[in-house]
């Protein structure tokens, strides 16, 4: 979600599943919602049936989503920025933008640093050796008062709007068609349909998923679309927004809780090596407003951070020891999975834990992953199922051709419970925390993940207590207030991340008045303090378990507004808001752009914001105060110009996949692929070229399966029993392949064999004057489970990641195919 935060301030789906029904136009691009999220896609069909909405699907394949679309256009995998950049150009040149919205709620009027430049595929400040940018020129011009300079007339040549206009003027319909392979008239038809929703009372919503993220330019794919949504004035609107359809059931929750190399809960970040000074650490994250009067909510960072440290280290965290700041590890670089497996492959790691995760199947270049695991001293797999990773050392013939005797890794496999056997909450893509209950005991000796973690922790802690060892302080002092120490309950943990008053909280205006008594649950993150008097393990989840009880377990599905908001169903972060940035659903004067879809509005009678949703705005911020709707951004508005938030440039630019079928970039042949993408030297050598591997390979999911789990479930194994690849009729004909034949698909990293599905749904595209064929590779098979044994599809995929998220490029690489 490292693309939405740089634009809007928060990295999450802005609206929610049911809200999709309010849209006028739905664009499914960079995803296949019908296939991957059928029950969420229901709200697309509802919008069509009850709101006369139109559905557009743009995808390299005619997908299950396309099967029910009003309009489908093909696109070459990995060329979405060209398509969407062309759309930005269309909207600007045809004057199909929501002017009031853009002027008031985006940085279009902001003036950009005079040194910022773009030419021949590179932005200013590029360092070729480091493959990264010095981003100092990617900034705004500031006045003497410290605020950014703006030009409300949009005439200034250095204002964001004009720079953007200039940047995308190169993305003409001809150029778009040349790069994407989408026929020009189809591209223009889609632009026309999208442009209609620039009207204040019309909305488009975009549904996307891994089809955009799994590219070396994944984050920028999404940002381009986010920019389109700003120009159309669709953010904050019911039926609008940017709907990032997350994959796993709690991937949103684990991201919110910061289970990532460089993160802390609630989107706080770990310090780097150089951030030795706690005050400076806080100051750099306590963002001051860039325009007068803006909320810039990260101004509260110290409150969130200190409360977190009180949660973790309790009494040991004091003002004097900077709330245990030194106990947190410092980053010299990001240890994302590609980096970690690179180190592991180099033999620089000894141990690894895979908790409910199947890295052998999930990360690119299976051969490298397997080789890396074989260099570990110990591997611990915690899972309800027998995964491929847990048996990476075992020989499964062609599917996993290894010699167990040569693999010296000690592998532990710990059985965990599944959903049905535990209580707890999951965060849906809509940011809703939903509580669930245990229905039966786990089989055999399986234990819950929390119990397993507690068991491991206590055993290690015991060893440090007994024998001492290196830097035991954080281990010995970690708060452990759980009634049954070896088995913390979900209730206790949920209360802990919500937060409580460590001491009596008194009203700052009247110290005699106690707002929250010591030990009581907090009502929300607004009560957090930076003086150690509150604790909260994840500030954005604060409000989930208050004195009133477990709000995540609420089951009132009443929908008073008819817009599907159900405010009393479970609990949505932040602060139970269902549509974030909803202040932007009103004009500058606080009146809804579309009164028939009023989310909130300014009530001059009550002098506050009122509506069906929790206003994403200070309640008493009158419209004439000009408080921007994007409260997390210090600008108060959404960023068309991402300043220094993105690795490869403030405006998205089309770069080719690292394995490109056309071998050039029509926009700038000197800079073909993402100059800042995460790629290691040894992996660079493993890239193939179009000469040997002429076809575009793309991996994806099928609706019958969920990753590598459901092949263990009999019903799903029946529904899609055997590995296959999809090819178009032209390619099949030229290779003499018929449906049902066995084929071999090869990349520079390995091969798989599968049954061929020959289809009309994969059309040959003309890209840069040459035909481009796509080979579709569903991922769900492996050598464990009930489905017929198959190859892990990541045998083929390249080891290269997005520059911001390090998400691997699973969607676009080069392969060859032959009859097996």
């Amino acid at each position, binding site marked *: 979600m490292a693309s939405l935060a740089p634009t809007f301030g928060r990295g999450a789906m802005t609206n929610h599943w049911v809200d999709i029904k309010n849209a006028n136009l739905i664009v499914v691009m960079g995803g296949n919602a019908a296939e991957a999220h059928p029950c*969420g896609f229901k709200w697309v069909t509802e919008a069509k049936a009850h709101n006369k909405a139109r559905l557009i699907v743009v995808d390299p394949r005619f997908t299950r989503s396309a099967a029910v679309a009003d309009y489908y256009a093909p696109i070459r995998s990995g060329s979405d920025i060209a398509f969407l950049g062309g759309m930005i150009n269309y909207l600007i040149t045809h004057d199909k933008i929501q002017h009031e919205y853009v002027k008031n709620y985006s940085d279009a009027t902001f003036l950009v640093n005079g040194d910022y430049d773009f030419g021949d595929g590179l932005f200013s400040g590029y360092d070729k050796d480091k493959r990264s940018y010095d981003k100092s020129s990617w900034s705004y011009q500031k006045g003497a008062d410290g605020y950014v300079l703006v030009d409300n007339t949009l005439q200034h040549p250095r204002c964001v709007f004009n720079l953007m206009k200039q940047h995308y003027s190169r993305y003409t319909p001809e150029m778009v068609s040349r790069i994407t392979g989408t026929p020009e008239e189809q591209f223009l038809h889609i632009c026309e349909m999208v442009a209609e929703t620039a009207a204040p009372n019309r909305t488009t919503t975009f549904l996307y998923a891994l089809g955009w993220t799994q590219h070396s330019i994944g984050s920028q794919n999404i940002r381009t679309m986010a920019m389109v949504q700003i120009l159309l004035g669709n953010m904050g609107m019911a039926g609008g927004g940017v709907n990032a359809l997350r994959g796993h059931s709690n991937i949103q929750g684990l991201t919110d809780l910061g289970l990532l190399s460089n993160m802390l809960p609630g989107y706080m970040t770990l310090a780097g090596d150089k951030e030795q000074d706690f005050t400076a650490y806080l100051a750099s994250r306590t963002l001051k407003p860039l325009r007068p009067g803006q909320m810039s909510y990260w101004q509260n960072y110290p409150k969130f951070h200190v409360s977190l440290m009180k949660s973790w280290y309790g009494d040991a965290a004091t003002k004097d020891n900077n709330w245990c700041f030194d106990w947190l590890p410092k980053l010299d670089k990001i240890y994302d999975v590609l980096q970690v497996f690179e*180190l592991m492959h180099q033999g620089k790691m000894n141990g690894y834990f895979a908790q409910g995760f199947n890295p052998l199947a999930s990360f690119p270049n299976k051969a490298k992953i397997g080789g890396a695991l074989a260099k570990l001293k110990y591997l611990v797999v915690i899972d309800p199922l027998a995964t491929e990773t847990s048996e990476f050392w075992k020989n499964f013939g062609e599917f996993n051709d290894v010699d167990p005797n040569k693999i010296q890794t000690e592998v532990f496999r710990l059985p965990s419970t*599944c959903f049905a056997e535990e209580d707890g909450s999951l965060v849906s893509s809509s940011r809703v925390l939903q509580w669930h209950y245990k229905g039966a005991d786990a089989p055999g000796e399986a234990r819950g993940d929390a119990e397993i973690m507690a068991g491991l922790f206590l055993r290690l802690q015991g060893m440090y207590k007994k024998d001492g060892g290196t830097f035991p302080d954080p281990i010995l002092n970690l708060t452990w207030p759980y009634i049954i120490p070896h088995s913390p309950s979900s209730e206790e943990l949920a209360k802990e991340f919500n937060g409580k008053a460590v001491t009596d909280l008194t009203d700052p205006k009247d110290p005699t008045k106690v707002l929250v008594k010591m030990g009581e649950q907090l009502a929300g993150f607004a009560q957090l303090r930076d003086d150690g008097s509150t604790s909260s393990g994840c500030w954005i989840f604060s409000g989930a378990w208050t004195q009133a009880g477990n709000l995540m377990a609420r089951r009132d599905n009443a929908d008073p507004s008819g817009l599907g908001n159900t405010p009393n169903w479970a609990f949505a972060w932040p602060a139970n808001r269902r549509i974030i940035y909803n202040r932007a659903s009103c004009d500058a004067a606080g009146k809804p752009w579309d009164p028939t879809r009023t989310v909130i509005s300014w009530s001059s009678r009550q002098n506050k914001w009122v509506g069906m949703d929790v206003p994403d705005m200070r309640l008493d911020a009158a419209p004439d105060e000009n408080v921007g709707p994007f409260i997390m951004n210090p600008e108060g508005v959404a960023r068309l110009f991402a300043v220094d938030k993105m690795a490869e440039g403030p405006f998205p630019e089309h770069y080719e996949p690292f394995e490109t079928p056309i071998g050039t970039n029509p926009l700038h042949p000197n800079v073909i692929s993402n100059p800042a993408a995460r790629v290691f030297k040894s992996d660079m050598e493993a890239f193939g070229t179009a000469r040997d591997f002429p076809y575009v390979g793309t991996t994806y999911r099928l609706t019958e399966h969920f990753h590598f789990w459901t092949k*263990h479930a009999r*019903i799903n194994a029946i529904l899609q029993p055997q590995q296959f690849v999809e090819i178009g009729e032209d390619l099949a004909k030229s290779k003499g392949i018929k449906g049902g034949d066995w084929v071999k698909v090869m990349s520079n990293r390995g091969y798989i064999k599968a049954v061929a599905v020959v289809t009309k749904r994969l059309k040959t595209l003309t890209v840069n004057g040459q035909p481009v064929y796509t080979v579709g590779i569903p991922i769900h098979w492996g050598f464990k489970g009930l489905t017929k044994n198959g190859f892990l599809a990541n045998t083929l995929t390249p080891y290269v990641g997005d520059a911001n998220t390090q998400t691997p490029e699973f969607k676009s690489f080069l392969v060859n195919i032959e009859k097996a």
Partner: protein
Amino acid sequence: MQVTRRQFFKLCGAGLGSSSLAMLGFSATEALAEIRSFKLERATETRNTCPYCSVGCGILMYSLGDKAKNAKSTIIHIEGDPDHPVNRGTLCPKGAGLLDFVHSASRLQYPEVREAGTDEWKRISWDEAFTRIATHMKNDRDQNFIAKNADGLTVNRWLSTGFLAASASSNESGYLTHKIVRSWGMLAFDNQARV
């Protein structure tokens, strides 16, 4: 054999008699049309959330037994929760097949270890598993923990062991995992959000 008129009558009579007998005596029991009995009648209903994708569909799990002390629950059926505002009772092919995940033959039952260089799993106790894993960890951490970097700055990190967290586990498990993993000083820490 010659059949006279009288004999003929007898023969016919016997034929009729035997067939009527069959109709009366040997006739198959004419069971009434009966539909399959409704299998959830007294099953216990538990509310849960589908563990697959992030639509977060509400599900109803039905288990055998009424949670009385001597009854052992087993999930016998799972279907969509009609009260849930997002899925409104519907489920996708994965959710509708959840029962077969719960009861998958691949479910792990007890801790196991595969010793270095061998070709088989060996069952071990939880206690042995925790001790052996914690010993590995402590050895690695004690040896490779970096308290200060080359420039002498305090960094307190442990890089030689990594952790991948499960993004299908609950917030509570996830939160505890994060709390524990950071207390160890780990940075090689990730979840499915990246892929």
